[in-house]
């Protein structure tokens, strides 16, 4: 082997190593979480996932994740109901109506907003928004609606820019084709461009859901701590992420409590994994 070959080969080896390393980390995270959650799964069985009661520190402890899982789903759903239409409207306006300078303003404020640390959004909610909700009839200062508002603020920039990107990536000729038939900007954007951008829009939806369900700080601060299934917008809720974040620091290492927190992590990881797969599938199909 001459010098150049050695140089080339060593570069190849390095690239392969780095690539393998990232795969290794993923496998290790999965392996580690499964390993740590196994004691809880084997001692509690299916009850771990179906049980509604989460009393890990009682004298007769209960380790049911279902209420928190449903809490996670409900707060995600509630946020989605607010943030998806709002994001679409913003994207629609930016795509079809905004003048370049308006678009710039919206884009930069969105970028700034997406840079705000979630802990600041949480504090803002507790200090300024919670009292308003209190006047409106909330019985708990922290509740599912407050959490959903926080998640909305947090994910709106992301949703709007993803959706705008999806619409902008539709060939300009599609828009012109519709306008040339006499369609208004609204009609062209709504019935033609949005349809053509559907894979991208769906992808934005999935990625947004993924982001909401995994978000921790805002829900920890703003949505209250009760591991119950919320029945009204004013009820507190304890999503899986909040439970892990607040309890992991104090739990006895190796206990069933500790292990069931990892099981909660496993649930989250699985959801996120599935959503990512769906998103990949959508973008792969649309690029064909």
């Amino acid at each position, binding site marked *: 082997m001459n010098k150049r070959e050695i140089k080339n080969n060593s570069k190849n080896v390095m690239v392969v190593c780095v690539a393998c390393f990232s795969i290794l980390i993923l496998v290790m995270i999965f392996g580690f979480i499964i390993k740590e959650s196994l004691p809880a799964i084997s001692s509690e069985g299916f009850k771990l996932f179906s049980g509604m009661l989460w009393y890990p520190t009682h004298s007769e402890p209960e380790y049911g994740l279902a209420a928190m899982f449903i809490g996670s789903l409900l707060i995600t759903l509630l946020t989605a109901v607010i943030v998806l239409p709002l994001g679409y409207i913003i994207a629609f306006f930016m795509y079809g109506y905004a003048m370049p300078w308006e678009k710039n303003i919206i884009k930069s404020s969105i970028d700034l907003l997406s840079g705000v640390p979630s802990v600041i959004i949480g504090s803002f909610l507790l200090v300024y928004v919670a009292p308003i909700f209190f006047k409106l009839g909330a019985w708990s200062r922290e509740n599912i609606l407050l959490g959903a508002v926080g998640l909305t603020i947090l994910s709106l920039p992301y949703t709007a820019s993803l959706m705008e990107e999806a619409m902008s990536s539709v060939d300009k000729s599609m828009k*012109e084709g519709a306008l*040339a038939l*006499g*369609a208004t900007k609204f009609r062209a954007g709504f019935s033609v461009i949005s*349809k*053509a951008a559907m894979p991208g829009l769906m992808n934005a939806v999935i990625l947004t859901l993924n982001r909401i369900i995994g978000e921790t700080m805002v829900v920890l601060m703003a949505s209250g701590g009760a591991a119950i299934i919320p029945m009204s917008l004013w009820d507190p809720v304890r999503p899986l992420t909040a439970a892990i974040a607040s309890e992991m620091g104090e739990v006895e290492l190796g206990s069933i409590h500790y292990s069931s927190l990892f099981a909660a992590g496993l649930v989250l990881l699985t959801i996120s994994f599935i959503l990512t797969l769906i998103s990949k599938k959508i973008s792969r199909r649309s690029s064909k």
Partner: protein
Amino acid sequence: MPINDDKPSIVISVRNFNAYYSDKKALKEINLDFYKNKITAIIGPSGCGKSTLLRSINRMNDEIAGFRTEGEILYNGKNVNDKKLDLTLYRKNVGMVFQKPTPFPMSIYDNVSFGPRIHGIKNKSKIEDIVESSLKKAALWEEVKDELHKSALSLSGGQQQRLCIARALAVDPEVILLDEPTSALDPIATQKIEILLEELSQNYSIIIVTHNLSQAVRISDYMAYMFQGDLIEYDSTSKIIRSPKNELTEQYLTGRIG
């Protein structure tokens, strides 16, 4: 430029028309008349302004930042750049087909019925009639009549372009603008569209931009030759081919300007 033939009636006239993209002047003092139920070809090398002129006719450049115009384009005597113009109605009368076939991501039927529906036709059987007759006029009916509800994206490129023509016909226009409609198609599909355009010219006024000179010669009644934003020569196609008056036109026709 006046033409001393048997003088067909004028449908669109361009008067002292200038167009700018920001500071760049794309069209310089254009004056010409497009005639009713004739095919007029606008030819010239790339960047000569032929597409800009065509797109100015149905205001497709409105969306482009920095684009502005001076002078007038008159459609049946009305200035199309008038702020009070009902753009929706105007574009219904002056339709456009683009270089790249642009079927909407919906069924063949929905593509053709899109126009009539946005212009307020609700009666289902009437829409069905329009879809059928438009597809027939665009010579596509026989090929798609059994699969009207299939996605338009499943059609071949030539079929897609004829679908776009059918879609433009469905709103019952008077003028059809075509911007290099065959440049993305193979020779057989191109030939089908050329035959179609000749048939359509009996009932519609057609303005076609093409950089395919032989195509312009084959199908057009009138020819406008443009070069670097100027209208160099405009006359009946046979006259231009036989005896171009301007040296630039002759150079283009003989292939010395590409």
